């Protein structure tokens, strides 16, 4: 508990009144000084007995979803059982790092807050500092409340960015029709014969019925895999060493990783594949590997948000994630670790661009990604394997 400026003035006034009145023997003024001090003491007791048990805060919506750099509004309701005597004011509201929180509207009962995430990913927690003042405003004390169940999902912009879909042209493997010409078993179309077309596909009966000497052939449909897996590897080496501004770097890393996963996932879904994100996650029994499945963009955004809170993977888990995935997402600094760099280089990889990184090796099919690069090369490489 601290004295306010008015509190200091008030107590000084009481003491000065008591002293001068005693010298001049103005009894009513001495009584006035005592009354002022007694009122101050009562007021102080009222504030001292007010604690966090008398105050509660509640967010109207405890899970906010918004695209990166867009504004989401939330209402923070404040309840105080001592409101008749103790004024409660929110002095500051802080969101997790990476979220800009501003107070839009302030009433005694609630605050309207605006959340603007700078990076994509899942952010959790909200800390509000309340300033309690006694009825006479002579004292104040601060109480900090944290709301750990408040979640802000900041979706990557790549989910709404227009992309050029890289449709595979010639495929042999896959469980699902690719809706383009390819080398599958299913009939796709009839077209003029080309030298690269297999002879067994020439439709001789149709050719015979044609007036000219034109050759027509059956075009087979391409096949694509039913599901493609994107593995996200966050190694301890790349995320605990060196960086001065670790929190900010982590946010940027995850932002780019989310954007990359969004771009890859959106492209795969538009081709017709299902997407699975594979990553390490902390559980009660340590770190395990988890997969999030997405059939459409809505599920993809949820999967990316779940992925964004992934844990660091040790070398065994990283190897397992790479083994399970078709495309890897990892950072340039993660590749400074030789075994991991070797494993990652064997498959197509989206590498999060990081300053001052000197990777041991980078695979041939890799895109160094800063959030805007075209990732269709990776898709093409995976599907046409």
């Amino acid at each position: 508990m601290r004295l306010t400026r008015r509190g200091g003035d008030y107590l000084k006034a009481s003491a000065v009144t008591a002293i001068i009145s005693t010298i001049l023997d103005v009894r009513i003024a001495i009584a006035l000084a005592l009354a002022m001090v007694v009122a101050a003491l009562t007021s102080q007791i009222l504030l001292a007995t007010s604690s966090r048990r008398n105050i509660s805060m509640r967010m109207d919506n405890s899970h906010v979803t918004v695209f990166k750099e867009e504004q989401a509004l939330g209402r923070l309701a404040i309840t105080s059982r001592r409101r008749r005597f103790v004024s409660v004011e929110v002095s500051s509201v802080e969101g997790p790092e990476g979220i800009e929180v501003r107070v839009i509207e302030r009433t005694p009962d609630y605050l309207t807050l605006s959340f603007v995430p700078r990076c994509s990913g899942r952010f959790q927690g909200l800390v509000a500092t309340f300033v309690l003042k006694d009825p006479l405003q002579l004292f104040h004390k601060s109480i900090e409340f944290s709301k750990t169940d408040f979640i802000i999902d900041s979706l990557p912009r790549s989910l709404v960015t227009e992309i050029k879909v890289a449709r595979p042209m010639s495929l042999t493997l896959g469980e699902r029709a690719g809706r383009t010409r390819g080398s599958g078993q299913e009939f796709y179309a009839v077209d003029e014969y080309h030298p690269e077309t297999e002879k067994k596909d020439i439709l001789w009966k149709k050719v015979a019925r044609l007036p000219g000497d034109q050759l027509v052939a059956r075009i087979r449909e391409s096949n694509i895999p039913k599901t493609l897996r994107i593995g996200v590897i966050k190694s301890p080496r790349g995320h605990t060493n060196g960086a001065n501004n670790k929190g900010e770097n982590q946010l940027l890393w995850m932002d780019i990783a989310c954007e990359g996963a969004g771009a890859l996932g959106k492209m795969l879904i538009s081709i017709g594949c299902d997407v699975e994100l594979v990553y390490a996650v902390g559980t009660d029994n340590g770190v395990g590997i988890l997969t999030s499945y997405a059939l459409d963009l809505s599920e993809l955004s949820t999967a990316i948000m779940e992925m964004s809170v992934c844990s660091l993977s040790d070398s065994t888990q990283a190897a397992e994630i790479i083994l399970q995935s078709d495309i890897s997402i990892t950072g340039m600094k993660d590749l400074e670790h030789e075994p991991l760099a070797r494993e990652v280089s064997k498959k197509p990889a989206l590498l999060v661009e990081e300053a001052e990184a000197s990777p041991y090796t980078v695979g041939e099919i890799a895109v160094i990604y800063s959030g805007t690069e075209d990732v269709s090369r990776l898709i093409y490489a995976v599907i046409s394997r």
Partner: protein
Amino acid sequence: MSSISNVSSKRNVVKIVCAALTALSLLILYLIFLGRYVSLANWSSLSQIETWIFITMIIRVIALVALRTRYQFQPLVPIILFSVESLLIPPLLGMYIFTGYAGYAQAMGTILTAWLGVSALVLSPYLAFSFARSMITESSLWGLMTLSILEFASMLFISSVLAKTNQPISGLTGLGAFFVISLRDQISNASVPFASTGLLFSLSALMFYIGLLAHATMGTREAGLELRLHNLLLLPLIATMFIFMWTSVSVAFTSDILYILTIPTLVLAMVVWGVARGKA
């Protein structure tokens, strides 16, 4: 926004009411003094110096009140304006020392006592009004409280000493001289200077107490948005009830005001300050 402006306007009303109540308490004392002076004063032998000081003082008060609505004056300006007479004393004293002419000494005495009398008569209501005004505008409580005690003490002094006398007072110099003699007697006798009884005195003291306590507790609060004034009123009420109980219990042990009121006030103030760790 409307709730903030409502609270703010309510607070202003409280300030105005407190100021009016305190000014009224001072005016009651002034009216006691005025009534008593009118009945005792002998105006027949009014000298020219007294008349001039009286008239010019009225003109100075009117001018200052009129100009104050238009201009902002330094606090020193009214002090100099109302004590021009005292500035005449040093030259008169110099003349008296150089020439040894008794007329200068007499003029000094007349000017000084007439000035005291005129000030009590003309300046007192102006000072009461000025104090009430500062209750509305002043933000420092301790400065205001100091001023209020001095204001109330001086008003109580002029009214109580006059209430106790029955001897006629000769004009304005007589009034000034009477104040000087009363003050000297009370200092030399070491008696309680301003202790007065009487219904009007008690009424004035009560109004002064209520006005200033309400002002200190409610009037100078900053915008405490959601607290209602009737809830706030509880605190001065509790404090007053406590004082009644405390004084009625403690008089059984001692009648010394120092022990009953002053020391508890200072000790409690220290305790409150100490608990709040003195951080202003």
